[in-house]
């Protein structure tokens, strides 16, 4: 079969081709390795050769994904393979172990194409905080792919990988998926082991799939979810995940959180959102307004809680055991210079914020108060899910913005996660699916718009069914971005 067909196929289709013997796993891998190594989007920080791609992979696995290669966000530790979290401080680091999620994929027979670009330590919404330069949006290379899983999203949307693993702390899977016109799913906190995922904000970090369609998202999730004894906060999803097959939305109710959707949204994004809501109604779903009274404070709470956790998670990068080390012989100077040189500006900003928020005398005013806001947001979602099956929003208030457009204004950048952060704080699952195209506010060619659906904790199966039915009706073609390959 021609390579172009293979490149156009979804991961599930590719798996079926391999199972039927129409293409060999070896051919499939070499096709995709070739694609990955011709990366012009700076989507990869490291690409594998065949031996490295197959290292630790069970090639005799009879799983439903055997032979389909995957791109891995550089936040996952991979034994013997450079792992930097896009930070200079981890330059040259090759972990002695492999993250549980990645190990599960290898055990299912999935080769690894490479490690994808990201915002340093997953802190960012544009991929511009990578110490190794930003990944580019395959729809318009002058625009950002979103972040922090920007490299994973660009690789999938740009035809450099059939699918990819990312992580989401406040929107880091969903927002880049939306900006790159692909599907991104953040599972319920605890569904997937965090072991081996370099920590940003431990109580929020969750691993999930970035894929071409909803079926692939379900398929990849089914391979990574599950309790892991190396992560005591992991539970897995009871009953596992099966491939979605719903064709309608009859009997399902969708809530629009009016408190959240008031401000700062591009008109083009609003139009696509309204259109998608009509499509839901056309499929038999009912749509109503719900209250998430505290969700609009989500960003404020998030930017206290996440930096607080990050400030302690990132303290281990001290130059003593791995990564770069300043040669100063005085201990305090060695720490200071190593960390001063090794961390980028945004990471330093968040370490400072978090350190301040936890310092004695300020703890209650900042960390304590933010925790209380988080509790109220959790209750808001509980109440909303008492009334509706799903909560829906645009994934991001804008389409992909230009490189450099928001880098000087962190607060505007933080607002990119306005609609995704509340679900992270509540720990509930949420998916972003491509729902249409809209012009950027400053003009220019149309860019993809994502539609976010959130479900109650561990409601992934229902969420995937609804997204699957909607995806079919929306008919977004899932093709590779204009400037991809």
């Amino acid at each position: 079969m021609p390579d172009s067909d293979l490149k156009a196929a979804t991961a599930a289709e590719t798996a079926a081709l391999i199972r039927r013997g129409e293409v060999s796993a070896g051919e499939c891998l070499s096709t995709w390795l070739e694609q990955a190594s011709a990366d012009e989007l700076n989507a990869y920080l490291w690409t594998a050769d065949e031996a490295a791609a197959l290292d630790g992979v069970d090639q005799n696995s009879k799983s439903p994904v055997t032979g389909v290669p995957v791109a891995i966000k550089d936040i996952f530790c991979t034994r013997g393979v450079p792992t930097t979290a896009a930070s200079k401080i981890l330059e040259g680091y090759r972990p002695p172990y492999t993250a549980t999620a990645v190990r599960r994929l290898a055990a299912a027979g999935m080769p690894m194409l490479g490690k994808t670009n990201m915002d340093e330590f997953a802190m960012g919404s544009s991929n511009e905080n990578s110490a190794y330069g930003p990944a580019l949006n395959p729809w318009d290379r002058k625009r950002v792919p979103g972040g922090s899983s920007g490299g994973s999203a660009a690789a999938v949307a740009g035809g450099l990988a059939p699918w990819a693993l990312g992580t989401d702390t406040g929107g880091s899977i969903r927002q880049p998926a939306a900006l790159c016109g692909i599907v991104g799913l953040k599972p319920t906190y605890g569904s997937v082991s965090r072991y081996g995922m370099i920590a940003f904000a431990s109580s929020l970090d969750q691993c999930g799939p970035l894929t071409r369609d909803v079926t692939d998202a379900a398929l990849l999730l089914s391979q990574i979810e599950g309790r892991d004894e190396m992560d005591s906060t992991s539970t897995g999803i009871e009953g596992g995940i099966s491939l979605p097959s719903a064709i309608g939305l009859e009997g399902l109710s969708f809530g629009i959180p009016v408190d959240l959707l008031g401000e700062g949204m591009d008109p083009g994004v609003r139009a696509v959102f309204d259109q998608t809501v009509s499509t839901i109604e056309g499929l038999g779903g009912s749509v109503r307004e719900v209250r998430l009274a505290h969700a609009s404070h989500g960003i404020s709470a998030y930017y206290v809680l996440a930096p607080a956790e990050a400030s302690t998670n990132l303290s281990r990068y001290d130059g003593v055991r791995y990564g770069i080390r300043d040669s100063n012989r005085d201990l305090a100077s060695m720490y200071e210079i190593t960390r001063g040189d090794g961390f980028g500006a945004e990471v330093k900003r968040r370490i400072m914020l978090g350190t301040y928020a936890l310092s004695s005398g300020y703890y209650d005013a900042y960390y304590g108060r933010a925790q209380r806001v988080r509790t109220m947001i959790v209750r808001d979602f509980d109440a909303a899910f008492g009334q509706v099956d799903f909560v829906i929003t645009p994934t991001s208030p804008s389409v992909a913005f230009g490189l450099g457009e928001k880098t000087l204004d962190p607060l505007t950048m933080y607002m990119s996660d306005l609609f995704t952060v509340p679900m992270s704080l509540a720990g509930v699952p949420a998916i972003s699916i491509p729902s249409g195209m809209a012009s950027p506010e400053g003009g220019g060619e149309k860019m993809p718009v994502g539609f976010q659906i959130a479900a109650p904790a561990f409601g992934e199966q229902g969420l995937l069914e609804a997204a699957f039915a909607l995806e079919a009706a929306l008919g977004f073609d899932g093709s590779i971005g204009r400037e991809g390959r």
Partner: protein
Amino acid sequence: MEAVIGLEIHVQLSTQTKMFCGCRLSFGDEPNTHTCPVCLAHPGVLPVPNKKAIDYALLIAAALECEVAPRSIFHRKNYFYPDNPKAYQISQFDIPIAINGRLGDVRIHRAHLEEDAAKMIHVGESGRIQGSDASLVDFNRGGTPLVEIVTEPDLKSGAQVREWGQLLRATIKQLGVSNVNMEEGSLRCDANVSIRPVGSDVLGTKTEMKNMNSFRFIERGIEAEIERQKQLVASGGRVVQETLHYDPTSGELHSLRSKEEAHDYRYLPEPDLVPIAPSEQMITSARESLPELPAAKASRYRDQLGVQDAAALLLSFETEWAEFFEGVVAADDSIEPRVAANWVTGELAAELRKQGDEAPSGSRVTPASLAVLVGLVASKRVSHSAAKNVLEIMVAEGGEALEIVKEQGLEQISDSGELEAMVEAAIEANPKPAEQVRSGNDKAIGALVGAVMKQSKGRADGGEVTRLLKEKLSG
């Protein structure tokens, strides 16, 4: 003025593996041979609590009569130092696993679980990180489970601290949850010391005394510190909050760091761990599996068995010795426990020490064989001094008491004719003391008794010899 002292005791738990990873615990192995990504704090790793350590903490909580928290949580205690690879220690902060207990006359404020730091070795003359040529880190110890026990400020003197510390050590040893070896660092004790006018209920400024590796040094260190504070205040000075180190060789106190450098630990609830919520069954089973603890054992020996105070304490603090003692009593119920206890803690312990043995378990003497010997003394078949000779042989070579007595001809002289002859011979051979006794100087009788004992090779009954001598010399 009176002293007010509170203690913080760190107990390393003797679990198979570390607190939050699967690395084996070891003492004295090659450096950095028991490490993994978790205890070296590689990126992306997560802690998984050691179930056994939680069980051990519950045992300690039960032994100290503490209340167990239904849901205790772990915090991150943040500070940078090379012995602390995550740059935070996982410890418990506002909700520890156990609170409000008691051991003897000291109240327990709290007990909590945490992990130990790695071990630092500073190369060079200073022995400290400042001015050292290099500093090495051995991560074998890093992550060892610890229970930190904090007392209320209920102690009043160095001697009381030593005695209570020994009771605590014996209690924890009895539980089998720690090696409680102070030199190896599996038991570490810090003391907070302050003084105040007698009768006051206001606490004075305290100093913290750290890293003392025996209770005897702790006693001396605390006494020195109390004296220093008293003199300081008497001369119009003021106690400054600081951390002190007591040098047992010079007897001097050195300031380690002043409180100005105090850390802000920026405690954060540990998001990687769920709360410890022991089931009712876990708590009950900890209580039910408690062995008889030293304090209870000591009072039973004293009150029910009539054992003297000192011996009761010695026995109850050392499981092995207690078992040996109970073995002696069980072997022959005609032996008075008080007498058996004196033999075990006195003669036997001394003889073992003399021959370079510490514990009775490895020795050739068994409780049953000691019981026979004690029985021979009680029934006056062997004199006390001859019995000591027998014991010496038993410790050195083993064997049965009765056989040794026979072989060595050490059976007490019961034939009064033989004894009388010896007494008369002694009087004849020592006319001078004999004359002194006759003229009313009773003290001189000792020399005559000694002569008879010597001649009889200890086989004579001292009391009988004295009686006979008096009889002969009063006439």
